[in-house]
């Protein structure tokens, strides 16, 4: 009995075919270099950071069809998160989860123990809050381990400087490094990029992007029963040192996709933003951000972010060129539903091209691409690009938080390091951010604090 309907049949056939193509490359994988796939051809995976996204990434890893792959170790600072993650992964991928109690590690040094279960050529997934990326990446490089890391990968200027050095080292060691900016792996966006390069909409003169929805990344005071450090890690979106803030965590994808289409990183940012209805929320985020990014040729990306319920929503990115316009994201990351138009009225009469539906899942594609590179020993390293995307995100955030124009060099050379000793944290450490006597954490003060964000 076919358990399907017409449309979904075509969708399913389509996915099946994608799988078949991947399976063909499996056959070849055994013939090529063994240096980057484990000798027995099974790639071992360690998951560092077992929250919802880390678990999702591990599931994507275990869903790659190009050869045997299994999860062998897990690490987190929260025992319950690790347990939940293990349960979910076992439910879906029972045959590929080989993580006995002895390979489940809890604590701030758990990442080392988890990676110690891997061999050179295996893969570690970094999905802890971004603050820890450079710490974990340094260890992976030392061990010759390939990495998939969630975005953002740096939180401020100093952590970006560290990361860029590490990125160079990882290239020298020919490690394969994927960064979770999955839109770069979306086939529709890749085709849009080709079309823009071929001049379909002319030269890009302006871009705009929107990420507007209800309250997000806000948090109330720390409850009893959890330490300050663990609370800040648990609610990392609320604390700039841990996550780079809602701004970077939420907006990086669209800043990155626009810059990709433009073919450049912005050189400066001019921004505004503020806090409106804070109530009992104590996080460091603004409720809204309006950012003007300037590219080397003087053209702009206008970025609008808002987290206020009851206002007009939006989750889209657009490019405007001298001949036409393009939709980079329609209403989220997936499906992209990218299109190009003659002129700037995006109507069906003006449509030049639209990507056929349905689209393959970019969260899976980014893994298919990484594992393919590992098995075939193809150069594959997104670390530098990911650090740059994180840096220009921080540039816009700092511009809004300080009320100053922030250039690429300003943010790169900024001396304010949010959590300099993040590599030395233990369960007993004081948190990198301390609440004031009123129980509130320091927040940005545009126009008053100009060199640092809080």
């Amino acid at each position, binding site marked *: *009995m*076919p*358990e*399907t*309907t*017409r*449309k*979904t049949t075509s*969708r*399913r056939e389509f*996915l099946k075919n994608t799988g078949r193509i991947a399976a063909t490359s499996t056959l070849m994988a055994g013939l090529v270099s063994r240096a980057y796939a484990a000798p027995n051809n099974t790639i071992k995976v360690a998951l560092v950071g077992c929250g*919802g*996204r880390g*678990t*999702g*990434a*591990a*599931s994507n890893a275990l869903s790659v069809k190009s050869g045997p792959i299994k999860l062998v170790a897990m690490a987190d600072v929260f025992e319950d998160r690790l347990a*939940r*993650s293990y349960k*979910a*992964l076992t*439910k*879906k991928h029972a045959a590929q989860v080989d993580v006995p109690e002895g390979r489940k590690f809890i604590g701030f040094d758990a990442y080392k123990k988890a990676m110690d279960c891997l061999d050179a050529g295996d893969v570690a997934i970094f999905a802890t809050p971004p603050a820890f990326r450079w710490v974990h990446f340094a260890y992976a490089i030392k061990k010759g381990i390939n990495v998939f890391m969630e975005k953002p990968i740096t939180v401020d200027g100093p952590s970006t400087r560290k990361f860029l050095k590490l990125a160079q080292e990882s290239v020298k060691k020919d490690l394969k490094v994927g960064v979770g900016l*999955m839109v770069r792996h979306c086939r529709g966006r890749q085709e849009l990029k080709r079309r823009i390069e071929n001049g379909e909409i002319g030269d890009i003169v302006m871009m705009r992007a*929107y*990420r*507007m*929805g*209800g*309250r*997000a990344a*806000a*948090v*109330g005071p720390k*409850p009893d029963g959890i330490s300050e450090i663990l609370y800040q890690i648990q609610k990392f979106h609320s604390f700039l040192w841990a996550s780079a803030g809602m701004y970077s965590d939420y907006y990086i994808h669209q800043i990155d996709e626009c810059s990709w289409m433009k073919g450049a990183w912005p050189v400066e940012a001019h921004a505004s933003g503020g806090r409106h209805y804070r109530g*009992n*929320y104590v996080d460091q985020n603004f409720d809204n951000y309006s950012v003007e990014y300037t590219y080397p040729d003087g053209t702009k990306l206008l970025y609008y972010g808002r987290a206020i*319920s*009851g206002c*007009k*929503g*939006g*989750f*889209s990115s657009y490019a405007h060129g001298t001949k036409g316009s393009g939709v980079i994201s329609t*209403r*989220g*990351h*997936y*499906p992209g*539903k990218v299109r190009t138009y003659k002129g700037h009225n995006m109507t*069906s009469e003006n449509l030049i091209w*639209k990507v056929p*539906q*349905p689209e393959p*899942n970019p*969260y*899976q594609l980014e893994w298919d691409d990484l594992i393919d590179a590992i098995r075939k020993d193809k150069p594959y390293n997104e670390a530098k690009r990911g650090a740059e995307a994180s840096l220009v995100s921080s540039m816009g955030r700092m511009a809004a938080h300080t009320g100053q124009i922030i250039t690429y060099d300003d943010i790169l050379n900024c001396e304010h390091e949010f959590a300099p000793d993040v590599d030395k944290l233990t369960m007993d450490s004081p948190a990198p951010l301390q609440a004031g006597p009123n129980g509130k954490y320091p927040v940005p003060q545009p126009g008053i604090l100009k060199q640092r964000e809080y």
Partner: protein
Amino acid sequence: MQSYSAVSYRVVKCVALFAISIAGCQPRNVPGERPKLPGRYTETITAKSGEKISFEMVPVPGGTFLMGSPEGEPGAEDNERPQHKVCVAPFYLCTTETTIELFLEYYQETMSTSQNASYRQKKSTGRSRSDVDAITGPTPVYGDLTMGYGKKHPAVGMTWHNAKTFCKWLSRKTGREYRLPTEAEWEYACRAGTTNIFGFGNDPKRLADFAWYEANSDGEPHEVAGKKPNALGLYDMSGNVCEWVNDFYSPDAYRNAAKESPAVNPRGPTTGSSQNAFYRQVHVARGGDYTGLIEELRCAARFFEETWWRDGDPQMPKSRWWLPQMDLIGFRIASSINPGMLKAQEKQNDGQK
């Protein structure tokens, strides 16, 4: 889509000219005499902001109909067969798909974060458990709940569980029990007493008058009630967004339902199809959506949650509440007509006379 020619319908018509009778069955849960059907009514809620939000409910008379597609219906799938006799008690159905405006109000009143959960707990101390504040609603949506659409667009991207929770909230908010329609109720209302393929007839050329679908939607859902309603006054039963119904999905559901003739107020299988763990928890959605091909807009066409509906959710476990960026799926609310309610309304009507 043009290949879906009107010629093939002639065959179907003959088969479908099977007598159905609206008054042919006395549903078991309505004892005594066949009650007089109450009128349509408008429900208005007051949002926390003071704004009024209204929606309209129309009565659907009870009766017996043939559920599923007849042999030979073009584009029909196996899971729509056998066509079988079903008897449905009268009920109310909303004239439109649930709008973003109404769904946003629910979201804002019930959204669960650890923050406002404890706040709600404090606030509801000393109140009865039935207080709307006691409902734990969705976690914050990833991205934008409206997906950029306006307040009169259908609410989209919620899981079945989320749609059910909405009904619970709306019931407490209004004091009247709202729920999702059963799959049988949905198809019965879509057919609106007809035996044809689309509810308005068999000619796909007329689809554009009644439905937003692949040929005219421009790739997105539209404001509700933008097209002609069916004979019962229901808008967008075909196309625009697919609509959650209460039943679990099983490809065998109709074969099992057909063992009883007529099947009386069937509620579908007790779990989803057991072929794998995922499909055990899958529910049915009906009506096709704005990307729908002609055959997907047939009254009999069945849809159900597929794994790719959650591809936009990069988390694991997947959200209980959201299908991120899935603007193909929404829902429409129903309400039972019970004798007690009828009496109350009659009294009210008499009082007004």
